[in-house]
């Protein structure tokens, strides 16, 4: 009997928790739900429920795919921690992907701007392009002032901050990056902490 490939996708970098169970390239179960500060409560029970529906347990998984931000939203750490633990305990492959790519995959427009709010008019943003059945990146993920950044773009695009990811477009893409050392995996914060910024400024002055 051919062994099937069982992948678990986790992303908690936005207000929405996204979990997906993909078996041989087919999304069998998924959760996409808004949760105000409670990804920490729901993530494990949801994973358990999805696996149960397919008569699986964590140990049956072959790969974990995790959204690593960008963003400094507390939630991103929950998904990354859970993904790291699953991969480490079961010695399985782990891939990281931009949470902005996951967001962008929800749109079918040719050009998509994934956007995660970073307050004070700023956001984490990444430009992606829909090409037949896969997604490609056209501008790297960055943190910038929303209006300033958008005003420089000369083509039509769709801005996405909420939307159920289309996991097939991600799995078909080159946007997944294999993590060599699971212990070293951290979220992509894209900026140092305020405390570090202040300390560097102090040293400079």
């Amino acid at each position, binding site marked *: 009997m051919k062994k099937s490939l069982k992948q678990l996708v986790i992303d908690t970098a936005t207000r929405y928790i996204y979990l997906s169970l993909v078996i041989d390239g087919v999304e069998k179960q998924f959760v996409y739900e808004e949760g105000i500060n*409670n990804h*920490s*409560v*729901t*993530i*494990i*029970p949801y*994973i*358990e429920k999805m696996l149960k529906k397919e008569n699986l*347990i*964590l*140990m049956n998984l072959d790969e974990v795919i995790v959204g690593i931000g960008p963003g*400094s939203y*507390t939630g991103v*750490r*929950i998904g*990354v*921690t*859970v993904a*790291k*633990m*699953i991969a*480490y*305990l*079961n010695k399985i492959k782990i891939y990281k992907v931009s949470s902005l790519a996951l967001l962008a995959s929800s749109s079918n427009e040719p050009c998509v701007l994934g956007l995660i709010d970073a307050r004070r008019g700023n956001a984490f943003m990444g430009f992606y392009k829909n090409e037949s059945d896969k997604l490609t990146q056209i501008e790297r993920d960055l943190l910038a002032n929303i209006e300033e950044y958008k005003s420089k773009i000369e083509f039509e695009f769709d801005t996405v901050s909420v939307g159920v990811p289309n996991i097939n477009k991600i799995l078909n893409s080159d946007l997944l990056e294999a993590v060599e050392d*699971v*212990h*070293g995996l*951290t*979220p992509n*914060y894209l900026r140092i*902490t*305020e*405390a*570090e910024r202040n*300390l560097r400024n102090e040293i400079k002055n």
Partner: protein
Amino acid sequence: MYVLGVETSCDETSVSIVKDGKEVLSNVVLSQIDIHREYGGVVPEIASREHVKGITYVFDKALRDAKLNYEDISLIAVTKGPGLIGSLLIGVNAAKVISLNYNIPIVGVHHIAGHIYANYIDNGMEFPLLALVVSGGHTELILMNEHYDFNRLGETQDDAVGEAYDKVARVLGLPYPGGPVVDKMAKTGRDVYKFPRPMIDSGDFNFSFSGLKSHIINLHHNMQQRNETINIENFCASFQEAVTDVLVAKTIKAKEQYKVKQVIVAGGVAANSGLRKKMKSMINDIPVYFPNMDYCTDNAAMIASAGYFQYKKYNKADDLLLNGQSRMNLEDIKNGN
């Protein structure tokens, strides 16, 4: 029974395996103190980032050190609060993954119960006992009539002892964390300033350290203004004498009133040499115990020990909805919640 302890409430990422609440097979502590020292205190966002970075590594090392597999573990005990919420959530979620992965029961443990049980590891417990909990976040006297029975007799009305140490150290230009440095300087100084002993005769078991702290800050400031030479060692000794006098006096009062069989001191400030010396010399009729130095600061061995007794007493595990809580009352765990 092997218990896997997990502690991430502040700035140490720690995992430990303890047998029957007592025998420590491994206790891995990834301390961030060198990182936070630069900032003069724990920066919550940095602490959370460091926990994520180190989390799988500490589990791996704890299992290797103990020469055990996850299949050998019967219970997972994880700190659920109080503490920095972003930090707590890393340990709680990592622990929940193990619980689901290997179908091992999990209990959320109160951080202070952990500090108290740090004493069980080396000294055991005889009831009723009195616990003085002193750390950067806590100053309280707790009466235990049996295992996992916590009755608060009194607590600080403002600053915790450890907090007062950090603030005084900062004013005196000493590095963070203040406790160990002030303790060290105090050894060569003398109690020349005779600072007030706050609430020493208050008749209850409460404490207050913010007035004493302000008093010291003002005196230091005035002396600077007058260009007087400041003897840091004497400042440290005078402060430490005042603080430990109050802590010891209240402990003795509670010990007599409740006729306890032993006194234990728990928390980071339990490492203070002045407090250790004074407490031991002033109490001679019953044993006074301090945890081993390794178990004074935050560590997962103490959480594993506390979790073992919590599970034994209530015979109840948490479900996977378990979450971290930044604030938590020790007395609320009476019904096993």
